[in-house]
């Protein structure tokens, strides 16, 4: 396959003691987290635990109030959000946030906006189409007219257009039918097998623990547990809280 499939291991992402919130409301209380190059890491937890806030902090949409945020040697807290895609950080936001009135291909084009990405547009677009053949069929269709699953794939494809080293996924399974959820996770698996580092936030704990190497359990803005995915899946307390097991 094309060269775009080969992802050199990127730098590691490291969060130390991150505090963040909105106005008077504090969402994160000293969260520390580490994602090694080539790793897939999950962040799970109930609604309102601060999972989305965590991703917003990493991609610069929200400034942390305290703590450090490093990607390789770079201090991310010093950079504006729009500078991060060029560093290799791509964020697939909650609810996908496609541009519904643009075509699939135009959505991909917006994803390749940064200067460095423009040179690779055609190559990466073909790569995305190879990953998601259905996107190629619908390249001239308005994104808003596609099904939820297709939109999720388009959103992931759009994020891949910047040539990321790490992909941040926010609830990729939200609002999708079970069968489609399976497909999305299968894709996430494929993407990481290509060597891309993945940080994925999910409520669908059972599914995500099958895809990632390690996971953090976030509860009311704090890391309540962390460990290898297999260990967490076996942990009785976590099974009780999140997996509906005994």
């Amino acid at each position, binding site marked *: 396959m094309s060269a775009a499939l080969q992802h050199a291991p990127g730098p590691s992402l490291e969060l130390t003691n991150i505090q963040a919130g909105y106005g008077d409301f504090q969402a994160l209380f000293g969260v520390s987290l580490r994602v090694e190059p080539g790793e897939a890491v999950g962040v799970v937890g109930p609604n309102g635990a601060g999972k989305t806030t965590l991703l917003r902090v990493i991609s610069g949409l929200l400034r942390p109030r305290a703590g450090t945020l490093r990607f390789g040697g770079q201090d991310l807290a010093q950079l*504006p959000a*729009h500078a991060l895609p060029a560093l290799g950080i791509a964020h697939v936001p909650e609810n996908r*946030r496609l*541009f519904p009135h643009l075509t699939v291909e135009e959505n991909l084009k917006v994803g390749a906006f940064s200067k460095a990405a423009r040179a690779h547009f055609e190559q990466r677009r073909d790569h995305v189409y190879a990953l998601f053949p259905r996107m190629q069929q619908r390249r001239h269709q308005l994104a808003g007219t596609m099904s939820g699953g297709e939109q999720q794939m388009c959103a992931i494809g759009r994020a891949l257009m*910047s040539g990321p080293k790490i992909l941040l996924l926010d609830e990729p399974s939200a609002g999708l039918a079970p069968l489609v959820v399976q497909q999305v996770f299968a894709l996430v698996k494929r993407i990481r097998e290509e060597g891309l580092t993945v940080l994925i936030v999910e409520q669908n704990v059972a599914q995500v623990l099958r895809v990632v190497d390690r996971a953090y359990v976030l509860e009311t803005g704090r890391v309540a547990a962390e460990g290898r995915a297999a260990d967490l899946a076996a942990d009785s307390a976590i099974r009780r809280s999140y997996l509906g097991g005994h």
Partner: protein
Amino acid sequence: MDLLDPFFLEALVNGILLGGVFALPALGLNLVFGVVDVVWLCYAELVMVGMYAVWFLYTQAGWPLWLAFAACLPLVSLLGLLLHLLVVKPLLNQPPINQVLATGGVLFVLQGAATLAFRTDFRSLGVDMPPMEVGEVFVSGTKLAAFCAALLGAGVLWAFLKFTYVGVAIRAIARDREVMPLMGVDPQRIYLIASAVGGALAGLAACLLVVQLDVHPFVGLSFGPITFMICVMGGLGNMLGGFLAAFLMGLIISIGGFWGNTEYSYVIAFLFFILTIFARPRGLFAR
């Protein structure tokens, strides 16, 4: 009545030609509104400045007309940039009405500055192209040329929005501002570009208007309000809607003028606008 009456046909043709002239400022205003989410109340005054620029360079400084036209575009574009940087940008997080009123202040500034610089006399470029006769219908050559230039300008804008990275980002940002940084897009830069392009469109509109209308400091008031109506009728920020509404308004005014006189046809156009908004509060072409 006879639809093939040459005078009626002439009104029809003139309406379409007039629509082309309205279309440019409507496109510019909609572009800025769609991207920056601010109504430039002084948009017609930017056009007025451009008209004075062409008039001054051509009749006073003795430049060739094409060079005056060529200078007008970047000049008004720069004005759009300054407007954004000095007035709009500091107010971006303020309520919309504050932004609109500040640009209303700029309207006074430009009118006042023009009065100071050129007094209130009507200034004419004094160029005219011979009318053309198609069948029994006479068409003003100047208006036809202006119309073609307007269509050309709209076409260039369309290609820019359709095919360039910045153009696609401009269409994207109109729908979802917050997500843009995740695409590596700096919204502030897109605002600047949209303001510059919006200004350039005002500059182009100035070139097309200055050959048809005399310039005076208040000339903006003669086509500014109708431009706002056109944008609202098409749906604020909806470029295609505004483009179509421009022709609708042009036709109403021209055909109204055929039956009555031009003043009443403007009244009809404004009434039509008000009724349209009552019927479709988000514009004729709102989805």
